[in-house]
């Protein structure tokens, strides 16, 4: 394997690991603010109980996100120097604004949010919670501005192979940003919804009947049930936007080779074959592809064969990977739809979480991290779908890679993989451990050691 493919695997591994945690913290920050505000409005302790448990999940996820995010910022330089050299004039300011408007905000107020409850007035603690949630969302915004620009670049000109900004508003509000940003935020909301439901179901099954569990379960199920139809709608719009700007990606998602074909069927299942340039086997619904993508019964869409130059150079993404990851994402979304709506129905009939049949509770435990699967699959669809371009039509991935020995990339890749695998294992087991501990009703304090000096003070204070 050469440096290019190893660097791609390394970057893919790093970003796959990284994305898991912002996906949780973006929405969980707002959920925490919701818990806090509900507590302030109702005075009901269950909201604070839920806050205390979930703020730990937040803190853990946040730390995981921070440390893996730092890795990303260095990898631009160590593995992809061509990226900054060619489009640094555009990527640079966007990344700088992310650090300045989001990173510091999150990092400073996280300290106050986690450890400041007894040191600051309640309003300041609520404000800190808000600023952390706001900061994570801002951070997502800037990253998605840059990422969207890499998919649908505009507002720039190329001089001597280097991109220069001509219109910052066009760069920031590029055509795919609105869809990508809302799709990602909703994905975060769904990930957190199922994590809330999954861990709460786990605690419930362990016999935890506390009000905090009920509150979190209800919040999770309701959030999931509300967001999933919106997500399907936004995802569809996102697809149409991609068809307009990156038709090769959509062709790969659909397993659609022949652009002259009309009407276009909707391929449900197929085995795309890059050698023969057709699907070896497919199950498809006639007309439906045309209907969904062009809103007419015989509309044509560009096929993969349209993206091969006369010299035989392939300018479309690897088909099978995009095709399959897209299907994994959609299937996970469908499972979320069924689960959350069925749960809503049961919860309305019965009394909250008691109304849920036991298999359904196990189902929620099993789906606790389903948001991760959907997010990763969606991420692969869109990112692999951009290949062979790093910046669509502007810079190829192969032209940005660093000239470092393959062995060095392989060595560090293996080290990262080992660390990541161990950390994911630890992360999931600690969440489970925290949930099990909470189910046993153990105190939520994280440090039980007395203040140093306190013991001595107590010893010398005469008994009253």
């Amino acid at each position, binding site marked *: 394997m050469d440096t290019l493919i190893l660097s791609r695997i390394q970057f893919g591994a790093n970003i796959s690991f990284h994305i898991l945690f912002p996906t949780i913290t973006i929405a969980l920050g707002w959920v925490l603010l919701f818990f806090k505000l509900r507590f302030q409005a109702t005075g009901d302790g269950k909201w604070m109980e839920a806050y205390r448990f979930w703020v730990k999940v937040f803190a853990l996820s946040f730390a995981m996100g921070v440390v893996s995010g730092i*890795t990303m910022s260095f990898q631009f330089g160590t593995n992809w120097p061509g990226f900054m050299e060619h489009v640094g004039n555009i990527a*640079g300011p966007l990344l700088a604004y992310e650090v300045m408007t989001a990173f510091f905000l999150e990092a400073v107020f996280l300290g106050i949010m986690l450890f400041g409850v007894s040191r600051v007035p309640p309003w300041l603690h609520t404000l800190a919670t808000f600023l952390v949630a706001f900061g994570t969302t801002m951070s997502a915004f800037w990253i998605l501005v840059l990422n969207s620009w890499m998919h649908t670049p505009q507002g720039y000109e190329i001089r001597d192979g280097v991109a220069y900004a001509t219109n910052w508003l066009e760069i920031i509000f590029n055509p795919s940003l609105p869809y990508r940003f809302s799709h990602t935020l909703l994905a975060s909301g769904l990930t957190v919804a199922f994590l809330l439901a999954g861990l709460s179901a786990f605690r419930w099954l362990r016999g935890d009947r506390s009000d905090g569990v009920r509150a979190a379960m209800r919040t999770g199920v309701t959030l999931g049930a509300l967001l999933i139809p919106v997500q399907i709608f936004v995802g569809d719009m996102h697809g149409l936007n991609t068809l307009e700007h990156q038709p090769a990606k959509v062709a790969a998602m659909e397993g659609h080779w022949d652009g002259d074909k009309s009407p276009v069927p909707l391929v449900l299942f197929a085995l795309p074959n890059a050698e023969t340039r057709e699907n070896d086997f497919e199950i498809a619904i006639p007309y439906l592809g045309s209907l969904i993508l062009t809103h007419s019964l015989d509309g044509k869409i560009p096929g993969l064969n349209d993206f091969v130059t006369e010299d035989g150079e392939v300018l479309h993404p690897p088909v099978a990977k995009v095709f399959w990851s897209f299907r994994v994402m959609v299937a996970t979304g469908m499972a979320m739809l069924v689960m959350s709506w069925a749960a809503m129905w049961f919860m309305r009939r019965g009394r909250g979480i008691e109304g849920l049949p036991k298999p359904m509770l196990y189902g929620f435990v099993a789906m606790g991290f389903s948001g991760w699967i959907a997010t990763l699959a969606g991420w692969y669809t869109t990112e692999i779908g951009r290949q062979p371009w790093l910046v669509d039509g502007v810079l190829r991935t192969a032209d940005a890679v660093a000239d470092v020995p393959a062995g060095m990339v392989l060595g560090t890749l293996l080290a990262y993989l080992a660390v990541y695998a161990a*950390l994911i294992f630890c992360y999931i087991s600690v969440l489970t451990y925290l949930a099990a501990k909470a189910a046993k009703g153990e105190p939520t304090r994280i440090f039980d*050691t007395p203040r140093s000096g306190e013991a001595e003070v107590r010893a010398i204070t005469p008994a009253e």
Partner: protein
Amino acid sequence: MGAIFSDPAQWLPLTFAALMGLSILIYVVLDGFDLGVGVLFPFAEDAEKDRMVASIGPFWDANETWLVLAIGILLVAFPAAHGAILTALYLPVAIMLIGLILRGVSFEFRAKAPAAQKRAWNNAFFIGSMMTSLSQGFMLGLYIMGLQWTVWTVGFATLTAVFLTVAYSFIGATWLVLKTEGALQLKAVEWSKGGIWGLVLGLGAVSLASPLVSPRIFDKWFSFPEIVLLAPLPLMFCLLIGLLFVGLKRLPTADDSFAWLPFAATIVLFILAFFGLAYSFYPYVVPEQLTIYEAASAPESLLIILVGTVFVLPAILGYTVLSYVIFRGKARALSYD
């Protein structure tokens, strides 16, 4: 001076070099003390470890962010240098990143994982802190040596790796003198007394090596009138070391007055050392190869960032100070309640 400011291609790179320098300096001071606390971990009892983490718990994340800002400015303002520096430092960067990952997650895991695993996470915290400090010191050394990999430069970089780690543990120890009390404070004073020698040796080694490696740096320091103008730098350095010696001997005081002194003096030391280095390397961003003017990005992109920086940086500094004020005083046990 006026001529510089009429030409954006002159003053913008200079401004961004200054901003990057400021960011690195703040990073070295702030993350320096919390990395140092991690390096000192094996010397403390279990209960003391909790207290040590409590003293840095609310800050470490924001401290680390200054590194992201520094590297961000490097890649934003000097894209050509960014690639050259980071590909030359590929391996130490990877080691540092894994170190940062290990120690960053250890903060959370050591407090949340089952008690039986706490020892393992304490070790991970120490190892991660060591990996980070050592690799940063190694990078500093290699940078001073012009980013060349030879037996001699790697040897020197190994030496700076050890010295920077000592320097971090020293500022970490002085931080603990400020933030703790009782037996742990007494220990921290002892650690500081030990670390001061490492600091003197380290700063001395770097000060001697830089001019020896580069005739250009030699000329910048040892020609007239520079040598006279620069004389206050080493003088202040000696003065501060003396102050630290005397101060540490008398600490801790009965009413805990002057507990802040070693930490404050160490910050000034770090600042002096930093200015010495910055003076030596200006105007180069890649030593002896690429100046900040050659490596700078397009002025229009730099202006876009500068406009934001003017508003955002004071706000960042403001709420950073706020957080240190909120968590002032002796470290208390960390609790979410």
